[in-house]
């Protein structure tokens, strides 16, 4: 045999004293033993022939070379990729996000729905989703989720609880219809917590509705941008309501969702407050979606600071995981789940595939962030998805079209990143989010190290992720 080998595409990492390869684009993670690590090292300077390697490493290395070549950690022959397959359409629905209203009682300065970078044009459209539109959405979800045992309905806004009567009646209707269709349905909603009352809390707890609260940390941080129309901060109003919710609603884990901005980057302080002082089960962070010129946009240095603090929390998460305990930093949990499954994304997310957003008027959108935007409308709930528009949206967002991503090792988990972010930054949902490439690679590397260390020292913990993400 006269093969010449060179390194394949992978990201090497270490954890718990072991060496690993994260293979790209498969997303497979293999642990190397001494002989296989030796081959990888020999090939780092460049291509070498099989005979050459066998002469240096001995005839036993033949088996090592075969295994590495078969898993494509090392490659020979021409260096081109087969194009990634397109998703089969129509794709069965998994989740509908119902924007039950586009109205909100707050005026958060960074809001993507009302702020300076909004994509929505709600003028002249329904402000509150009527009951029959919500019911039609349920029917549509059940009828178009072929092959799935369970489906999800998420209520969103605006401020979701401004249309609580429709949330309630829709849940009742959906339960009944799902039972008749032989499917399992679950519910969740996102709220700013200002309208939580004992009555609402009781209902959410009794009906096992998952709740995510938008909150940016302790008072001095939260109230910088999360304010009423008159500029007054909302922390003092929501804190007691949140405590009450957390005390009563224990049937589902309650999460906090933090938006990081140039003014609000103290991740550790925010996490400690939300997890320890208020008692949230999970806390997740996301940098604000905005064009770079806004005052609240996080500059390059700011993201580095965020990553450093994320690393500190990830280290804490690891210590918990090694003891087999839960830690509430959901950014790690979400990434570990994807790494454990070895997900390799052709599209950055499920928008316009298994997930659709429905606006108050019944217009369909790729996700909740594009609701009420005429430019991104994908049909109407009464007539269904406009398949041509859907295919066009998906084609433009497919990894095959994002040339910049083709040499990036993080593309299995990123696939170019959020469509909405790309639209705000570059005016094109199919553009790769090049402004946060370093961030994604940095964060994925942190999570791979955590994963490797857990795999080496407490592999049983990873069983938590066996079913996650693969649930039907």
């Amino acid at each position: 045999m006269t093969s010449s080998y060179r390194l394949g595409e992978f990201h090497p990492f270490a954890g718990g004293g072991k060496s690993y390869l994260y293979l790209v684009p498969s997303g497979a993670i293999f642990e190397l033993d001494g002989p296989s690590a030796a081959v990888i090292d020999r090939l780092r300077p460049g291509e070498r022939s099989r005979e050459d390697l066998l002469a240096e490493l001995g005839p036993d290395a033949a088996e090592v070379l075969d295994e590495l070549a078969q898993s494509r950690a090392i490659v020979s022959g021409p260096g081109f990729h087969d194009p990634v397959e397109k998703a089969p359409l129509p794709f069965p629905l998994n989740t509908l996000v119902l924007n039950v209203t586009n109205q909100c009682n707050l005026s958060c300065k960074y809001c993507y729905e009302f702020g300076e970078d909004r994509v929505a044009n709600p003028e002249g459209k329904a402000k509150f989703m009527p009951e029959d539109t919500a019911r039609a959405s349920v029917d549509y979800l059940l009828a178009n989720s072929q092959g799935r045992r369970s489906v999800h309905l998420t209520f969103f806004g605006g401020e979701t609880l401004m249309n609580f009567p429709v949330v309630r009646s829709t849940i009742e209707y959906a339960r009944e219809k799902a039972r008749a269709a032989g499917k399992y349905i679950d519910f969740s909603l996102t709220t700013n917590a200002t309208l939580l009352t004992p009555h609402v809390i009781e209902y959410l707890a009794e009906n096992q509705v998952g709740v995510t609260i938008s909150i940016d940390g302790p008072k001095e941080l939260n109230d910088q941008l999360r304010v009423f129309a008159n500029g007054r901060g909302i922390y003092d109003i929501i804190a007691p309501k949140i405590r009450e919710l957390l005390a009563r609603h224990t049937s589902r884990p309650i999460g906090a969702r933090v938006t990081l901005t140039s003014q609000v980057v103290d991740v550790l302080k925010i996490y400690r407050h939300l997890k320890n002082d208020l008692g949230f089960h999970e806390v997740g962070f996301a940098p604000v979606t905005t064009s770079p010129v806004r005052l609240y946009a996080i500059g390059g240095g700011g993201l580095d600071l965020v990553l450093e603090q994320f690393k500190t929390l990830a280290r804490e998460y690891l210590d918990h995981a090694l003891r087999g305990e839960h830690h509430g930093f959901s950014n790690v949990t979400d990434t570990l789940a994807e790494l454990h499954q070895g997900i390799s994304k052709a599209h950055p997310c499920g928008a316009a595939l298994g997930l659709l957003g429905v606006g108050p008027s019944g217009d369909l959108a790729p996700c909740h962030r594009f609701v009420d935007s005429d430019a991104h409308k994908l049909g109407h709930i009464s007539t269904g998805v406009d398949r041509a528009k859907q295919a066009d949206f998906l084609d433009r967002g497919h990894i095959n079209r994002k040339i910049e991503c083709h040499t990036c090792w993080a593309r299995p988990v990123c696939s170019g990143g959020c469509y909405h972010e790309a639209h705000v930054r570059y005016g094109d949902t199919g553009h790769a989010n090049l402004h946060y490439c370093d961030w994604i690679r940095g964060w994925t590397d942190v999570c791979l190290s955590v994963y490797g260390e857990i795999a080496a020292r407490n592999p049983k913990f990873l069983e938590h992720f066996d079913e996650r993400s693969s649930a039907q």
Partner: protein
Amino acid sequence: MRHLRAVNRKAVRVEEWIAAEHGDVFALQQGGGQPTRPHYPMGCSLVFSPGWEVDSAGGTAGLCQPVERDLYDCYLSCFWPAQVPDHLNNYPDWTGKCASATKDWRNIDLVFP
């Protein structure tokens, strides 16, 4: 694979794919890898099993194996839906007088259900 350990679920799938694509198929083996000892398939002439097969003419004269060869395989070792008594429920002592099949096979009882 001996040098790479599949850690996540995708790696396990890759490993299965490699085994299907590149591995040999060894039927009736214990464990994977190369066979370490000779393998004797069950049911060949190394094992004496009195049986009831018929030849191409419907008789027993032209059989390449003794007529009794398959009997035990149907009754005990392998299940085969043949017209032999069942040893689990109704005729546990059917071969009670047959201590050594090669010598005593004529002592196997007749059964009239």
